[in-house]
């Protein structure tokens, strides 16, 4: 069971080579196939996630959540998706047309690109990049521009305000996010995500770097624009933030990308702090799925428990609390590593 997917990939490559293709082209085709499968799984997984989010919200607020279509309302999201697909695509006349149209596409492309380096099991990263963690952070930073494009292109005061809030928030929280990951990188001595997983063979980094995990988690919640940090799309004051003017499938693309980002960041958190695909008995790819879902449930739990934080409090939390804490954490980690070396461990 452990090697199912690796065997399939191996079999596909050897079959293509036996057809007379050069190995380079066989690898390229394999890459395309892997990529298509990943995108497919992400999209289908979002259907489950939205249902889960609504069920969790219902549970927290002592109501039932979706319960009409299918057992436990599990087909509700499929019906919603069909509705969104058939809706009219409305583009307001005063928009910056091109930017308005490409913003959701770029947003989903950037979100899907994050998955290239995530190890989804033993030897199961699509690209085993030696600067994988840095790739994740820098590609992730591109999504700010997509939100800015959406807000600007809509030519609407709420959209622009929402986009500005979300960009200010994402730029501020990128710093503690990257700093909190530095502790893990310092212990491992590598930016390769597979190496980081291997280094957690004996002990998970959540035990060695608890402060980094907490700062990472808070910063990640803000990066994802999820509650309690969802000021950019606070319904009561901004309608829907940068997405106000979007309808139908274009709006659904933003929604899809937000959940895609959620899965990617949760998978990153479980890779860096919870030992990644390592675990007893079950195959490695099942372990990473279980750990990712665990982290996502915590994200949902936080969203439906805490009230929204005011914008200036949000900023001062990042600059005055999280950044100093993560800097101190880096210094202490460095001192600890030197101490261990000096003691000869």
């Amino acid at each position, binding site marked *: 069971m452990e090697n199912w997917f690796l065997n399939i990939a191996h079999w596909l490559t050897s079959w293509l080579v036996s057809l007379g293709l050069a190995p*380079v082209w066989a690898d390229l085709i394999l890459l395309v196939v892997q990529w298509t499968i990943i995108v497919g799984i992400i999209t289908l997984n979002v259907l489950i996630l939205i249902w889960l989010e609504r069920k969790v919200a219902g549970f927290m607020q002592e109501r039932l959540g979706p319960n009409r279509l299918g057992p436990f309302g599990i087909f509700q999201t499929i019906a919603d998706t069909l509705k969104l697909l058939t809706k009219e695509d409305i583009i307001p006349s005063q928009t*910056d047309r091109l*930017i308005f149209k490409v913003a959701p596409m770029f947003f989903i492309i950037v979100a899907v690109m994050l998955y290239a380096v995530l190890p989804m099991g033993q030897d199961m990263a699509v690209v085993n*990049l*030696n*600067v994988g963690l*840095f*790739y994740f*952070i*820098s*590609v992730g*930073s*591109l999504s*700010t*521009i997509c939100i*800015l*494009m959406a807000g*600007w292109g809509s030519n609407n005061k709420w959209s*622009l305000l929402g986009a*500005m809030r979300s*960009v200010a928030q994402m*730029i501020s929280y*990128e710093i503690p996010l990257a700093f909190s990951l530095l502790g893990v990188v310092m212990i491992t001595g590598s*930016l390769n995500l597979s190496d980081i997983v291997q280094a957690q063979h004996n002990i998970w980094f959540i035990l060695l770097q608890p402060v980094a995990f907490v700062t990472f988690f808070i910063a990640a919640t803000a990066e994802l624009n999820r509650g309690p940090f969802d000021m950019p799309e606070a319904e009561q004051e901004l309608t829907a933030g940068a997405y106000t003017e979007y309808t139908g499938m274009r709006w659904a693309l933003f929604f899809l990308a937000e959940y895609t980002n959620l899965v990617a960041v949760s998978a990153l958190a479980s890779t860096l702090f919870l030992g990644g695909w390592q675990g007893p008995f079950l195959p490695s790819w099942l372990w990473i799925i279980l750990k990712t879902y665990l982290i996502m449930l915590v994200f949902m739990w936080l969203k439906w428990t805490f009230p929204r934080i005011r914008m200036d409090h949000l900023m001062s939390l990042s600059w005055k609390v999280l950044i100093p804490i993560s800097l101190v954490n880096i210094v202490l980690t460095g001192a600890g590593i030197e101490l261990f070396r000096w003691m000869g461990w």
Partner: protein
Amino acid sequence: MSLTINDVVFAFISGLSILSALGVVFSRNMVHSALFLILTFLGVAGIFFELGAGFLGLVQILVYAGAISVLVIFTIMLVMSVEVGKTNLPNSSMSTHLWGAYFAVLLTLALGASIWYSELPQVRGLAVSDAVGSLAGLMLGNYVVAFEVAAILLLLAVVGAIILARGVEEE
């Protein structure tokens, strides 16, 4: 000399960056120019990747495409008071044209001369496996003074920006 897959990739990436650089200059709308600038940065990052300098390419994306360009767009949005479509019009005065042409020729000459006269030894052998490590070794070893001076300079700029934005309280 046959066309390798590397050449095709290089032609594609550099063509994209040149086209988007032209887009920066020729757009009538300043926000469009800024967005084209991001595409140019991404193209430059692609050239870094193509040369095997993955880390530098990612730094290019994170710093330029992800952060600096956002600041550029913010600034444009905040200070813009005229109609958007007329924010980046060509300048009509003749002396500006002449000065522009003069500097363009000067820049081309300087760049061309420096490329023409410098020796470009061909690197053979395997690519560096631990590029990040050797970069860090240089930055915090041989060039640590320059590195720290740059850091202090940036810190001063941040403090200055805060003071400019908040204003000094009257005594």
